[in-house]
């Protein structure tokens, strides 16, 4: 319990730091003044510049963390997450395709459609040969490998589309594909709050199913769970959460992969519900912190947050891999 409070405190501290630190440094008084509706530099920074940015980062990070936690529990594999399995890449490709085609469709819908289509594609492609499917379902590592293959193909189609764009359009698309929090307004914040919140609500009644599935599919079925249906619903919720985040910040790499174990470690949560909440908090912390480091570490140069999480997350994936290996799981 204490550690859970500590995690919440950390989240609050990171958000406050993200609001105060940067090119223009604010002290606590100016921050408070800005929040409570006074005038001055604090108000401008909070309301126009950093406020929406931090809000969007918190929301998107929480959605990605939840999505990762769902997949890692569902597939009982710490390497399973929507980014490693190629879903976020699919969302990114869908958005890039709509930019190239000059369509003015709402980005969240495009991202969700792309992510969902990729998830279905990976699930179908990874089905074991012969179509024999027991309760055990498709092995998680096959899903991961197939997802990597699909991800490579999407990436190369994406870089092909990049060559079809004009110079400025390409720069815009590239910035977008790397994942970025710059120039986000309260509209984006509202969007991730509504859509992400909706999926989080949908998740609440499914926590019990997730808990049962962690015992293993046979046992869950024995306890009266309709395994196949529960799996499909949970996976759809996970894809929806990831797509909601991609729609506002772009395909930010590795947050969904890292957040669940980091959250569990920090909060010490054991139960399924507690770990989901911890993953959401950890995802929000990772995104806001990465964005802070990205914009404050090199003055005058705003690296997109996705570059930052990629540079941090790839070594994490490699470390995780060596851990899994030592435990003899791979």
């Amino acid at each position: 319990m204490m550690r859970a409070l500590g995690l919440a405190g950390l989240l609050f501290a990171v958000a406050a730091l993200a609001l105060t630190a940067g090119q223009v440094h604010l002290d606590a008084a100016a921050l408070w003044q800005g929040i409570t509706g006074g005038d001055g530099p604090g108000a401008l920074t909070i309301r126009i510049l950093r406020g929406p940015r931090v809000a969007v980062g918190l929301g998107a990070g929480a959605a990605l963390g939840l999505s990762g936690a769902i997949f890692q529990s569902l597939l009982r594999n710490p390497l399973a997450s929507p980014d490693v399995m190629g879903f976020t890449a699919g969302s990114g490709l869908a958005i890039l395709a709509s930019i190239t085609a000059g369509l003015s469709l709402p980005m969240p819908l495009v991202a969700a459609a792309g992510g969902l289509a990729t998830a279905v594609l990976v699930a179908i492609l990874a089905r074991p040969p012969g179509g024999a499917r027991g309760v055990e379902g498709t092995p998680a590592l096959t899903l991961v490998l197939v997802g990597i293959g699909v991800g490579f193909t999407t990436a190369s189609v994406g870089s092909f589309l990049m060559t079809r764009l004009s110079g400025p359009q390409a720069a815009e698309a590239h910035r977008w594909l790397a994942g970025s929090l710059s120039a986000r307004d309260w509209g984006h914040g509202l969007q991730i709050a509504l859509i992400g919140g909706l999926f989080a609500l949908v998740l609440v009644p499914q926590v019990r199913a997730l808990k049962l599935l962690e015992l293993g599919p046979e046992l869950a079925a024995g306890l009266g769970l309709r395994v196949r249906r529960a799996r499909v619903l949970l996976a759809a919720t996970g894809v929806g959460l990831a797509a909601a985040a991609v729609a506002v910040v772009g395909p930010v790499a590795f947050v969904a992969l890292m957040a669940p174990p980091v959250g569990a470690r920090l909060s010490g949560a054991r139960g399924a519900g507690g770990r989901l909440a911890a993953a959401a908090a950890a995802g929000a912390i990772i995104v806001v912190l990465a964005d802070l480091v990205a914009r404050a570490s090199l003055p005058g140069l705003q690296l997109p947050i996705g570059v930052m999480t990629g540079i941090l997350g790839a070594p994490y994936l490699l470390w995780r891999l060596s851990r899994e290996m030592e435990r003899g799981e791979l």
Partner: protein
Amino acid sequence: MTRWGLLIGVLAAVVLLSLTVGVRPVSLAEAWRALTAPDLTNPDHIVVLSIRLPRIVAGLICGAALGTAGMAMQVLTRNPLADPGVLGVNAGAAFAVTLGSLLLQRADAGFLAYLAFPGAAAATVAVFSLGGGFRGDASPVRLTLAGAALNALLVSLVSAVVLMRGDTLEVVRFWVVGSLADAGARPIAAMAMAAGGGLALLFALAPRIESLALGAALSRGLGTHPGRVQAGVLVSVTLLTGAAVALAGPIAFLGLMAPPIARKIVGAALRPGLVASALLGAVVLLFADTLGRLVFAPAEIRAGVMTALVGGPAFVLIARRLSPGGTS
């Protein structure tokens, strides 16, 4: 040896196809005249000599290099998913080229090409040590995941470099999609020598690689030094991949597709397998390049995209067969 005849025949057919078709079709007879008695006032001859011929030569070198590099990696690691693109070696070379172009403020292809080698070397060593390749116990899943992670890291770094300097995007976005279109401007002769050196080394090492594939303990008993053989393979993979990336940019999946087909055609022995893999790699790349020129003519689909469209599904197919139980 009808199988060899068939392979060489297919390659010859693809070369002729690539020489004659395109936005400006050239008859076979005219192409032959361009090669034997070039007339520099004839536009057909200019197209053949200065555009199509360099593409074909670069495609042959690059395809052969990637096909054999893939074969060497697959045999050494016993991993059917091993491929210079999938394991991040291409990305390493691309990163070195991007970073070099930024730091040294030079964008001439002849110079940038040489940066591909240190990049490929560093990525090869990194992915093998991360994936456990040196201990001889790398499972396919582990090595592939290590490659994917390395790839993601390098792509992020390339992104960071690009975003620091907007003008590098103009170099990079055309460069990261492998293509033979700019082959004429790149140092073909030097890269042919590098790839040839890598291939020769691989050929010389072939019996020892085969004994190493039996397992480290057994091969030591047969008098092979695993460390030296692995170092040799790394050097040749670096030479082959570096040359390929320098000529055509990072082309993924060729090294994945060519070896299994080569084995089906000529059997499991490594030396004939390498030759067949080289021929197949060249066939696939040249065919992809030619097809890419035709589909949306006069626009081009770059060869790297064409190989990915075929190679991605091939990767998925192999991955499905690989891990029915979750482990290799």
